[in-house]
């Protein structure tokens, strides 16, 4: 977000709440739309949807400006939207069109917009972790106050890059925030099976950095944790691990039968635990947004997503010569 944010949700302004709610809705509706279009066979390739995890991306990115960087994952649409990527450009990218953010050459797993500090979705699990260190290093060397956020999954926490990155951020006191989206699964394997650690944030203690586990379905909890971490990072106080307990509403990728999910848990996740429903309650209870204003946002977003689809469908595919352009800046 480009406006000044608060460190604690208690002080959230109407303007902020509106931005946050809008972004959460954009993610949800974008993903629902992609899900439907994929089912119809109109979207090619591998697609991993972020629906259900909105509170994480938005709660964190609310504190960031375009100068701050984020690194992302294969499940990157939510991070892109939260970081301010253009919906038309994103959707067109997923459609493989010339008007896509990457001119159709990247696709769902590689959406990026460096001008917005979004350093790219990434098809390689764990790859974003060291990349965040580099953005943090640039901030340190250039003595800016920028921060770098690394979104990564519970599954990625078992990859060596997680530890290499956290250790480097810790010894160099880099302005890097490690945001783990612990949605309980790496593909079809549970976090409990694949990871020996009880909590990923437990590692913070050993690396002697700040760390916490929060309810990742609760926008305000993520917002508060990230707010503190960003302030620490900007003040040169070093990195933080924030583990957000969340859930993905869809399968690992589109096409996944999800036999490994517990039906009750899945039901709870999309009803009482749902991040958007809970944030709606919150803004209403705290008189930030009214029921009517919420509906207005929903409608605005609906129109925006519809427009993104129209834009994409009507956009041309890239020119033939694009196969071999952009391999090098010069060669």
């Amino acid at each position: 977000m480009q406006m000044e944010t608060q460190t604690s949700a208690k002080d959230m302004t109407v303007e902020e709440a509106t931005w946050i709610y809008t972004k959460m809705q954009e993610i949800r509706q974008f993903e629902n739309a992609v899900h439907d279009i994929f089912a119809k066979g109109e979207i090619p390739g591998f697609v991993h949807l972020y629906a259900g995890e909105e509170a994480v991306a938005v709660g964190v990115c609310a504190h960031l400006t375009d100068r701050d960087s984020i690194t992302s994952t294969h499940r990157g649409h939510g991070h892109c939207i939260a970081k301010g990527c253009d919906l038309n450009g994103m959707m067109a990218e997923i459609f493989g069109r010339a008007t896509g953010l990457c001119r159709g050459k990247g696709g769902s797993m590689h959406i990026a917009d460096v001008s917005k500090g979004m350093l790219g979705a990434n098809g390689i699990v764990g790859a974003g972790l060291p990349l965040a260190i580099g953005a943090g290093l640039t901030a340190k060397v250039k003595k800016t106050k920028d921060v770098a956020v690394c979104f990564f999954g519970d599954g990625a926490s078992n990859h060596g890059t997680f530890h290499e990155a956290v250790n480097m951020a810790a010894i160099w006191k880099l302005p890097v925030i490690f945001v783990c989206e612990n949605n309980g699964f790496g593909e079809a394997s549970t976090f409990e099976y694949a990871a020996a650690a009880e909590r990923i944030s437990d590692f913070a203690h050993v690396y002697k950095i700040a760390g916490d586990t929060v309810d990742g379905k609760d926008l305000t909890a993520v917002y508060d944790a990230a707010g503190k971490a960003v302030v620490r990072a900007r003040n040169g106080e070093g990195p933080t691990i924030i583990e957000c307990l969340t859930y993905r509403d869809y399968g690992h990728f589109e096409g996944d039968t999800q036999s490994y999910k517990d039906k009750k848990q899945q039901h709870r996740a999309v009803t009482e635990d749902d991040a958007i429903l809970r944030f709606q309650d919150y803004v209403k209870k705290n008189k930030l947004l009214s029921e009517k204003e919420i509906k207005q946002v929903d409608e605005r977003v609906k129109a925006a997503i519809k427009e993104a689809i129209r834009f994409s469908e009507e956009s041309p595919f890239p020119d033939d010569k694009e196969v071999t352009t952009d391999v090098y800046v010069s060669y």
Partner: protein
Amino acid sequence: MTVKMSYSEAINDAIRLAMRKDENVILIGEDVAGGAEVDHLQDQGAWGGVFGVTKGIVEEFGRDRVIDTPIAESGYMGAAVSAAVTGLRPISELMFNDFIGSCLDEVMNQAAKFHYMFGGKAKVPLTIRTIDGAGFNAAAQHSQSLYALFTHIPGLKVAIPSNPYDMKGLLLSAIFDDDPVIVFEDKTLYGTKGEVGEGFYTIPFGKAEIKRSGKDLTIVGLGKQVNTALKAAALLEKKGFESEVIDPRTLSPLDEETIINSVKKTGRLIIVDEAYPRCSAATDIAAIVGDKAFDYLDAPIKRVTAPHAPVPFSPPLEKLYMPSPEKIIKAFSSMVGARVFSAV
């Protein structure tokens, strides 16, 4: 006796036969079963790999021998290497060959070098199964065909089966081979059906297959590009040219003899390879044949490959990116001269 099976089923069949035959054979990788320790899936598994290729294997052999790993390629690949040294015959799945970036050391510096560095005193009977290939709109990090990297490394054997029959036989050879072997599974071939031998059989490494014979042109197709070669051959036949299409089946070892003998007959060679063009298997075969069959060549050896570019996502671009029968024919036309070619 043969039976109709998909490429994917042939893999599943080979793994089961190997595991029945030798209790030291294990299958290890990310979600090769799936659903580990989930009550109702513990015995039956969830996925059987991202494409369901190993589905059901955990049901037959249990979790002790079908091991789901954390997302830690260095970790489990290194584990597979030394499990092989210490008495097992692991089949280790590297989900996509693009992920070799996370575990090249284990393959290149450990598995490939132990036998030599230790003076012949250690064996590494490891099989790595991995998915390669473009054509699936899986974009730059999930569409590569990296077999050249492995062929470059002494100590590794490299198989690139192009059809269900070869897949089964080569995979069984790999599993019972005492050297580390990497077997490439083209993701676009999984659904392809073909006649596969029943029961246990192996196909020796370093034996190419002549898919069709001809006297005017030799086309070597790598992996699924054998099919592109065959399509081009059919089109060329209509033009009156007889192509010999060769599937090398393994790149390391490479059956130079079959290719060279064919070129001695045809005088012309096109290599069709969807991998990157530089320092590739295509340049490798071209260099070897250019050297050893020099006197028999009537035209330069042509390579029909991907351009020197990552794999693009957008479907029309990916299509342009790939070898095609048309590109093969164009190459051939340049070899015989456009005039000769269009005259017929």
